[in-house]
């Protein structure tokens, strides 16, 4: 086979010129590189959004409500239609209604050594949105205490401000969870007291959370009015930095913790960079593919008489196709291998540099990038094979 190819190589020569070939090779290399880089960047970005080491557990849960303006003052309820619309958005995985307590409530210490009293209010959310594992998150009238989740920042506020100003001891979360205190609710049917206990701290929702069962029971018996409208929702989303989500909230005059959606701005920039690199890569790739297709056509056209003679003498079109593929295909293999190697080096450098900033991505390129390289190789092979077949069998 090699001997035949050597002889065929003497008969079919490419007369397009080395400079043109080298230019085309550089063009194809840059195109492949850009495409692979854009794929790898996209993978890296998705990894940053979704991997456990990077994910901020609060980031995927957003509490949303109407923007407080003069126009919405006293009218912050979220109607059924807007809730339905929010549920229908593809970037929102789940929606939970936040139910507020519509009765007065207070908590006070049972211990004289550590007295406190404060008026409070509660909220409840469906259990799916609670991030406490292994806690019995329910309530009935026989329950020994009402489980309560408080925002982590409440404890921080106590430990680092309040306790210092009041000369009180600082408390660890474990100690706080042991304290049993008195919860009293007041309403149209008088008042009633229960034991209350803090069972957990959460960063998701910035209010005191009680089980739905206790909320519904309290609202039924003690609420001063029967208004059941909803003013706040909690949503779960894969990507709080999604610019479409930010845009949707803005268009519907809804607001959320802007800290959690701040990534949307960076995301827009990254998306634009990836898209530009990808688009440029595709355009360059198509041009380079066209140039190489022309190279093959020119090679065949320049050797038309020789190819005709070879076929006359019994060379099969298959043998000629194989020869031409062997002439060009190794170039593509080397180009893709080179581009993949360069992407690997760039990924390694990026990893090293980002690790210093506590941002973690993989050392190695993703299988998706390797698959993309393989796909490009198969695509190039297919286009070349078709071109050769078309012109040889003519």
């Amino acid at each position, binding site marked *: 086979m090699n001997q*035949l190819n050597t002889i065929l190589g003497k*008969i079919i020569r490419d007369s397009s010129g080395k400079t043109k070939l080298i230019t085309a090779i550089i063009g194809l290399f840059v195109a492949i590189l850009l495409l692979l880089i854009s794929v790898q960047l996209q993978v890296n970005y998705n990894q940053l959004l979704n991997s456990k080491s990077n994910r901020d557990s609060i980031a995927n849960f957003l509490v949303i409500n109407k923007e407080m303006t003069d126009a919405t003052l006293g009218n912050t309820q979220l109607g059924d239609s807007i809730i339905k619309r929010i549920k229908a958005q593809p970037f929102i995985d789940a929606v939970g209604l936040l139910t507020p307590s519509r009765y007065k409530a207070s908590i006070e210490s049972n211990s004289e050594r550590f007295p406190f009293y404060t008026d409070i209010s509660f909220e409840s959310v469906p259990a799916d949105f609670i991030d406490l594992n292994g806690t019995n998150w329910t309530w009935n009238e026989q329950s020994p205490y009402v489980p309560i989740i408080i925002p982590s920042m409440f404890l921080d506020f106590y430990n680092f401000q309040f306790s210092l100003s009041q000369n009180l001891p600082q408390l660890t979360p474990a100690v706080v969870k042991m304290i049993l205190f008195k919860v009293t609710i007041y309403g149209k049917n008088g008042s009633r007291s229960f034991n209350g206990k803090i069972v957990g701290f959460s960063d998701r929702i910035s209010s005191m959370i009680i089980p739905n069962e206790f909320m519904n029971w309290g609202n039924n018996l003690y609420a001063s009015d029967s208004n059941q409208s909803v003013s706040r929702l909690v949503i779960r989303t894969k990507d709080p930095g999604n610019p479409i989500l930010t845009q949707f909230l803005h268009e519907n005059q809804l607001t959320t913790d802007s800290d959690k959606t701040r990534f949307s701005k960076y995301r827009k920039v990254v998306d634009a960079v990836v898209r530009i690199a990808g688009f440029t890569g595709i355009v360059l790739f198509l041009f380079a593919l066209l140039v190489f297709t022309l190279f093959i056509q020119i090679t065949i056209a320049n050797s038309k008489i020789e190819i005709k003679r070879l*076929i*006359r*003498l*019994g060379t099969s079109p298959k*043998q000629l196709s194989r020869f031409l593929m062997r002439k060009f295909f190794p170039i593509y293999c080397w180009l893709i291998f080179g581009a993949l190697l360069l992407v690997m080096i760039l990924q390694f450098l990026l990893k090293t540099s980002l690790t210093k900033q506590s941002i973690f991505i993989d050392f190695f390129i993703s299988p998706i990038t390797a698959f993309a390289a393989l796909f490009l190789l198969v695509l190039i092979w297919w286009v070349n094979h078709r071109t050769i077949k078309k012109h040889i069998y003519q």
Partner: protein
Amino acid sequence: MFELNQVMPFPLKEKKREKGSEIWNKHVQFKSGERIKITAPSGTGKTTLIHQLYGLRNDYDGVIQFNGKDIKQFNADQVAIQRQLSISIIFQDLQLFEQLTARENIELKRILQTPFYESSKIEEMAQLLGIRGILDQSASTCSYGEQQRICIIRALIQPFDWLLMDEPFSHLDLENQHLAIQLINEECNKRNAGFVLTDLNDDQSFIYSRTLYL
């Protein structure tokens, strides 16, 4: 086996002939191993017939079958397999690659398929035909006589059941013709192969099974 049924090339359709053809518009069979001499004056389609049998020309009425199949029905790859394994040819216009040496021209045909002979056979045949000295010379610098002998060796280096020869000795003197005929006879005998030879002259170089007037 070749079978020609009412074959008539388009270019010869309108041509008036003084003497009737034994091939055109007739039913003719060339059976395996037969040695056929085709004789005719210039312009009566000798090269056309060879090219038709070789599958190079389709511009004719009638049907040519090779081993029971219409040769027009063969696809490009099937034709190539036949040319590699069943039908060899010595073209009148030689069809050599001038950019190759004499040896490479022959070697190409030897290795297109699983070789029938070792490459040393090229030297042996070249020795017999008196062109061993020019084997590594570019084909373009060889004389017509030398080129014709290269073509003969090229046709004999491959496996075949049929050898088509279109005025194969037109550039050879009598002595070289004799050597070539000896070699061709020997190689056809080895393979039990038949041949179709066209020539202007009514020679008796080979022992023919039949001589047909075109």
